[in-house]
């Protein structure tokens, strides 16, 4: 057996890590809830597992999503992750090739150059040797970049980088020391044994000229082993826990496991998968307005540490901009929302909430303006006009009195109350017998679509209006106005409706694009998700978003949400209009004319009479 006492720290650290991981993951998996085991079992041998493996390769090793944020940052992450992974795998092959048997002491490949002193002669071994040196160089370039990033994060497209805790800094220091120590240990050994390659051999020769390499080698190997072991002991308590956790998270996600509405099980997998890369920080529009460490990376850190987070949980627009860019794909807004949950739903009586009179109608289409739609008469009236012109028989569900869909309560963490409220509306929807529900409010849309689980088609009005246009039910004049479209958070990022509104707008005028669009779209500042923000802070966001959208002096800013319209109108130079309003303005009422003229003639006559 090949053994030297210096491998003990490494082995101890490794053993400790394995025990802690098994214990921790076991507990979380236990908390995944009933049905999870069956779900996993069923998907284990399906394509899902294959897809998950591919995702693990792309995200955990290559860091494709980080590349998209910034190539240099992506390279830094990739060199460390992929480089280290290959160093372990190829090291294992090298050792197995050398000894001729696959199994060997598990630490042997890692300290291969210590144990194998003969200068390698065969071509294959020289090749392996060079490859290992190359990989080490690859990783070291990443470490150098990481160091550089500490001092100048803007070089990698980041205005703000994460402010780490001292624990994380220690772990970081250990991680950075691993590879330079390996380089020195191997070089020193190469200095007297000649078993290095293009990197370690020249360095070893150089060191050999000035230092007693034979004497120094073993202590440096000791150092390498201690740092490796130390890093593995620190790993479960530092941000590097994300390395093993992210892999499991990707598999669980692909197998269809969803987080529950409490911080347990899957939520822990998500929490510990955050690498504290800090990419989410710059995305947060609360940065200038609320100058506190409150972005997702800090929120997750506090939550993970088990600290009191209610205040932090509330200090967020739930706009989802951070979630869109998070390379790990953590359901960040959900974690904030479920942390808002309080144990206080004891007092609810269903009588507290409005109930909707139930009827059964012969119409196939229900129109629901929503609270915000009701408070924005322009949109509501435009929809009425369009629907009338189209000849579609419809029922305006909240024409007389507006109802709330329940999502605001849900966003405030009051899930049981939200459930009660939605129950009422759901019954009214179901009993109406309609097959299509059209809403003007993206907030209602999201909740009808995801939470209500009704057996009817739920459409946002932008989808429905496009259908009407494409089906020839209405026709519109095209103009040459320059339009900019603002994606509402709840419609775009949360519900994935990006193309339909744009398709309508290209029919109405020429659509110019701004950089922060689609998933990157800014929050208008009106978000119902933030309850504690003051009006001044809101206005700062509203102003900067309005200014941003006005940068090219468009003739009109188009959006598809009553709340966005309200927020942006306050500060926008060009008019802000909802898509329904734009269509109503440009509606060709040809086949409708006779009917309409008759009506207005009648009105005229009445006026003259009185």
């Amino acid at each position, binding site marked *: 057996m090949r053994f030297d006492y210096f491998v003990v720290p490494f082995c101890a650290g490794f053993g400790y890590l394995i025990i802690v991981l098994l214990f921790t993951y076991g507990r979380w998996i236990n908390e995944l809830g009933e049905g999870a085991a069956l779900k996993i079992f069923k998907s284990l041998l399906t394509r899902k597992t294959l897809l998950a493996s591919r995702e693990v390769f792309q995200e955990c090793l290559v860091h494709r999503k980080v590349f998209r944020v910034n190539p240099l940052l992506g390279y830094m992450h990739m060199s460390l992750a992929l480089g280290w992974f290959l160093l372990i795998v190829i090291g294992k092959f090298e050792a197995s090739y050398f000894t001729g048997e696959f199994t060997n002491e598990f630490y042997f490949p890692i300290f291969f150059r210590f144990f194998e002193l003969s200068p390698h002669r065969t071509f294959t071994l020289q090749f392996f040797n060079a490859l290992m040196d190359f990989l080490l160089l690859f990783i070291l370039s990443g470490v150098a970049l990481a160091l550089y990033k500490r001092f100048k994060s803007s070089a990698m497209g980041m205005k703000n980088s994460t402010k780490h805790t001292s624990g994380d800094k220690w772990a970081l220091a250990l991680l950075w020391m691993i590879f330079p120590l390996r380089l020195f240990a191997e070089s020193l050994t190469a200095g007297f044994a000649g078993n290095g390659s293009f990197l370690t051999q020249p360095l070893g020769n150089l060191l050999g000229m000035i230092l007693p390499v034979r004497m120094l080698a073993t202590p440096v190997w000791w150092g390498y082993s201690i740092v490796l072991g130390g890093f593995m002991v620190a790993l479960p308590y530092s941000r590097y826990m994300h390395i093993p956790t992210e892999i499991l998270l990707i598999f669980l996600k692909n197998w269809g496991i969803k987080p529950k509405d409490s911080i347990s099980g899957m939520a822990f997998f998500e929490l510990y998968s955050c690498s504290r890369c800090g990419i989410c920080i710059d995305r947060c529009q609360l940065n200038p307005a609320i100058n506190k460490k409150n972005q997702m990376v800090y929120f997750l850190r506090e939550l993970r540490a088990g600290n009191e987070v209610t205040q932090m949980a509330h200090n967020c627009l739930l706009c989802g901009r951070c979630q869109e860019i998070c390379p790990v794909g953590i359901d960040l807004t959900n974690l904030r929302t479920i942390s808002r949950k309080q144990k*206080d739903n004891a*007092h609810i009586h269903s009588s507290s909430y409005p109930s909707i009179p139930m009827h059964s109608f012969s119409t196939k289409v229900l129109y629901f303006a929503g609270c*915000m739609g009701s*408070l924005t008469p322009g949109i509501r009236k435009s929809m009425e006009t369009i629907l009338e012109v189209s000849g579609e028989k419809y029922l305006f569900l909240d024409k007389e009195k507006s109802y709330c869909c329940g999502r*605001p309560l849900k966003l405030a963490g009051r899930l049981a109350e939200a459930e009660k409220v939605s129950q009422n509306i759901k019954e009214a929807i179901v009993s109406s017998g309609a097959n299509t529900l059209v809403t003007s409010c993206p907030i209602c849309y999201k909740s009808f679509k995801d939470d209500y689980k009704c057996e009817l088609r739920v459409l946002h009005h932008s989808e429905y209006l496009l259908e009407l246009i494409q089906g020839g039910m209405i026709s519109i004049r095209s103009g040459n106005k320059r339009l900019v479209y603002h994606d509402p958070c709840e419609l775009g990022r949360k519900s994935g409706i990006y193309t339909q509104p744009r398709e309508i707008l290209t029919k109405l005028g020429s659509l110019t694009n701004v950089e922060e669009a689609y998933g990157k779209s800014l929050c208008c500042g009106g978000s119902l998700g933030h*309850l504690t923000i*003051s009006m001044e802070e809101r206005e700062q966001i509203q102003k900067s978003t309005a200014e941003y959208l006005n940068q090219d002096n468009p003739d009109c800013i188009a959006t598809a949400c009553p709340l966005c319209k309200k927020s942006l109108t306050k500060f926008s130079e060009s008019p802000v209009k909802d898509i329904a309003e734009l269509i109503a303005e440009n509606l060709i009422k040809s086949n409708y004319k006779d009917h309409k003229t008759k009506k207005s003639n009648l009105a005229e006559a009445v006026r003259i009479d009185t």
Partner: protein
Amino acid sequence: MSEWGFTVIQTNQSDMDQMDRGLIAKIGNAEPSIFWCIGCGSCSATCTAAQFNNFSPRRIIQAIRSGQVKDIMGEVNKCLLCGKCQLVCPRHVNTRNILLNVKQIMGQDAI
């Protein structure tokens, strides 16, 4: 008055002996904008819940400020946190946060 769509509500005299400053102390701390309220009633006029029952955010705010908190605890659950009140408030009172805070405090008392 009814021509303008208003109705007369019951007079609401404050009994100074019954005053409970506890709630306003807590809420004033969490949401100071409660002190900006001028009692205009715009919030109640637009309130979603008020269309179905006699809920009134304005009345809640007034009750908290004048320390008449006995009845508002059950009342506040009617609020749907929909945010319409906040959009119409001329004084930028964060009504939603006030109501959420009352709900939370009430919940704590219940435990």
